[in-house]
């Protein structure tokens, strides 16, 4: 039998397609293996950080023993509970924390790849984007290895964006699995980080994209109501849990309840110190000491200011404590003098101090002005220069976050043995040896199983960082260019997901810059999620712009 020229061409095209598919799969597998080779020796980094790592782990430790988050103190509710729920949940399932975070990150990336494929992105584009994502420098750095919220939040963020892309891309497949993943990722993220409430903005941008993309109404409704409903339900459940164990439905007592109100009242007292980084000046505290007697022991217990303080060394605020520390010191001091033995008493105490301040303001004993009711004051135009500086800093961070690449994993952890054992127990890390840590067997000369590829990490990060920054900038520029110059070319799902992502990224960066005007600069881990997602979606924006240009040319439109 002789093939006709047409069928021969078709079979040759099919064979070419098979080869391309196999090459693509091979590339993805090789990238995953390359990551494993590069990072398999990186251990969990155990850190004594009572408002971060240690807090999450100790709360999970108590959760696992059925003691809620443990005995109440000034730090119990200083951060949202999501990270501790994750740690306790993973431990219950027997999943080591580091493996869980790593698996979530990789699976989220693969899920995004399938979304990109559904949206029509070519294999070369997908493989290139995945290469940037898998070899992401920040995932080989110290902050990625600590028990922090950002690595987990990054995986969840990419899952949400991937689910959105699946829902934006036309398909005969059922949308419900993606709706479910979006709802889970969204609901859990809102319990993870305080600033993740900005994800409501992402959901709003997604709603607009769904409507503009002409998605069927049932899908639109499900894709919006499921995450919103899931988030509200999860929050209410978490509040009920906290109320059951601590007496009040407060998830984060730094931003809810009486403490932020008291801090806002303190900020409103006129003291002559006009500094955006200082909400509780020393002069104000001395005034309060006299006018609000129940606050005097707290004022007396506060650490002294000075040139050796972290406030001075890190933020240049030497004659005061800056906002990055003072609210925590006040809360700690109140606990230290015994005024806040439990959540109810704490709320009552902080509320009492606030009322005392208001009375003193009302009687004229203190001169006061209203400067907002929360921990962060409303923005004033005179802080514009500071806002621009903060925006520039955070934008630079988002383009090239400092990865703190780990070249040699630490041999020892500078933590108390009891805390180290709690980390070991909760995270199931295999890099903590109680005997070695306690000094009983002498310090190890080197960690077992040295990685021959470890020395590649730093050069690789140095190579990829500028490349990734270039891709992100080019992706954003391509998105704007495509939107302005090709209005007559129908928008693709790639365009919509890139637009939703970049709109959210701008919102998040602006919000973080606003907060850092008052709280001081953030660590670069604050942008891990946006940066990692950009590594996947900036190439998508570039590809969409290229496709739009070709489509315009084909239609005889100006290119």
């Amino acid at each position, binding site marked *: 039998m002789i093939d006709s020229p047409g069928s021969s061409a078709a079979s040759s095209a099919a064979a070419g397609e098979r080869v391309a598919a196999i090459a693509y799969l091979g590339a993805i597998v090789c990238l995953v293996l390359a990551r494993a080779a590069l990072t398999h020796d990186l251990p969990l980094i155990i850190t004594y950080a009572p408002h971060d790592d240690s807090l999450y782990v100790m709360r999970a430790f108590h959760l696992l023993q059925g003691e809620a988050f443990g005995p109440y103190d000034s730090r119990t509710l200083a951060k949202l509970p999501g990270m501790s729920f994750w740690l306790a949940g993973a431990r219950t399932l027997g999943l080591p924390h580091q493996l869980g975070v790593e698996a979530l990150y990789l699976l989220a990336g693969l899920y995004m790849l399938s979304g990109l494929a559904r949206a029509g992105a070519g294999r070369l584009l997908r493989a290139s984007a995945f290469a940037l994502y898998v070899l992401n420098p920040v995932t080989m750095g110290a902050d990625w290895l600590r028990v922090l919220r950002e690595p987990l939040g990054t995986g969840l963020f990419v899952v949400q964006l991937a689910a959105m892309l699946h829902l934006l891309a036309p398909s005969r497949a059922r949308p419900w699995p993606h709706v479910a993943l979006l709802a889970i990722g969204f609901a859990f993220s809102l319990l993870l980080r305080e600033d993740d409430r900005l994800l409501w903005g992402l959901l709003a941008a997604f709603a607009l994209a769904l409507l503009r993309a002409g998605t069927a109404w049932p899908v639109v409704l499900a894709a919006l109501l499921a995450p919103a409903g899931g988030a509200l339900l999860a929050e209410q459940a978490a509040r009920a849990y906290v109320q059951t164990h601590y007496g009040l439905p407060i998830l984060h007592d730094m931003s809810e309840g009486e403490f932020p109100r008291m801090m806002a009242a303190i900020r409103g007292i006129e003291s002559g110190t006009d*500094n955006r980084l*200082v909400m509780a000046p020393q002069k104000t505290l001395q005034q309060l000491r006299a006018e609000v007697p129940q606050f005097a022991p707290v004022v007396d217990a506060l650490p002294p200011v000075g040139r050796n303080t972290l406030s001075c060394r890190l933020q240049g605020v030497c004659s005061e404590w800056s906002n990055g520390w003072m609210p925590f010191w006040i809360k700690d001091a109140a606990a230290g003098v015994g005024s806040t033995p439990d959540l109810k008493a704490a709320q009552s105490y902080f509320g009492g101090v606030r009322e005392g301040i208001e009375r003193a303001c009302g009687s004229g004993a203190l001169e006061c002005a209203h400067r907002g009711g929360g921990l962060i004051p409303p923005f004033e135009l005179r802080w514009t220069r500071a806002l621009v500086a903060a925006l520039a800093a955070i934008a630079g961070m988002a383009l090239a976050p400092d990865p703190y690449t780990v070249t040699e994993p630490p041999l020892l952890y500078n933590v108390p043995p009891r805390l180290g054992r709690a980390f070991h127990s909760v995270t199931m890390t295999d890099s903590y040896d109680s005997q070695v840590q306690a000094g009983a067997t002498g310090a190890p000369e080197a960690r077992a199983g040295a990685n021959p590829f470890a020395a590649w990490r730093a050069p690789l990060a140095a190579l990829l960082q500028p490349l990734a920054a270039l891709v992100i900038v080019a992706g954003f520029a391509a998105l704007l260019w495509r939107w*302005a110059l090709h209005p007559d070319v129908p928008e693709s799902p790639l365009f919509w997901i890139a637009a939703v992502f970049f709109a959210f990224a701008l919102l998040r960066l602006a919000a973080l810059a606003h907060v850092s005007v008052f709280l001081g600069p953030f660590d670069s881990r604050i942008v891990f999620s946006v940066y990692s997602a950009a590594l996947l979606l900036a190439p998508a924006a570039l590809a969409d712009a290229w496709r739009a240009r070709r489509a315009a040319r084909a239609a005889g439109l100006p290119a």
Partner: protein
Amino acid sequence: MMRRLRAAVLALAAACTPAAAQQAEDAVSFRIPVLPEIARHLDLLEAPAHLGLALENNGLSPSLSSRLRVLSRESAQIRAGILTYKERRGPLYRYEAGLNLSLGVGEASFTVPVEVDASAVAAGAVTVRIYPPLARLLPQEFIDRVDFKIRSLANVAAQRKMLAYLDRLAGEQRAKGRDREGLLEAIAFEAYNRAPAAAAAGPDAGRAEPLSDQVMLLLTLAIWLAGFPILLLVVRMRRKGQRPA
């Protein structure tokens, strides 16, 4: 608290023992594995203050909770502890480690001889000997813990980092025709510049700036924040109207 207490006990005991008791068998010794290339910079041991600053310049602060205070080239202080370089005899560098205790009605000082033996640095080891009184009575657990702390501070990664830093600075100074003095000066200058806010002791960061000083900035921002999106929108509207001929 326990560490401070132990240090105080150690120092108190030191005061009761004659300095002549500096026999090797009375010493508490710590053998630290080091990179042999460290030999290039051993003369820094004669300037412990600069060595401390060099560590701080590399994020390897000798103390995480307190700032290093430079008293002189030979002497540095952290909290109540003072380390003073005394003399060098061949590969032996001798120091005096002191503790100033505030007793409420006055201060008391106690010192303990310390020596660093760099004779085996080429073989990859440096030995630190401390001569506390009644050294043999010190519990082994305490000695192990100190050893553990020293090793964790002087780990290989930290040594490599310091070596690269000192090689770079020394190379820069040699290129300028300067040697050790230039290196010490460069370390001190970098330490000063590293914390400008703290060193300058000027006004706090974050102080208010009059709105009138920011008028140009506000105008520029308004142009970009409003002008650029409007420009994009105008381009889009114009392109939307264009149809193929």
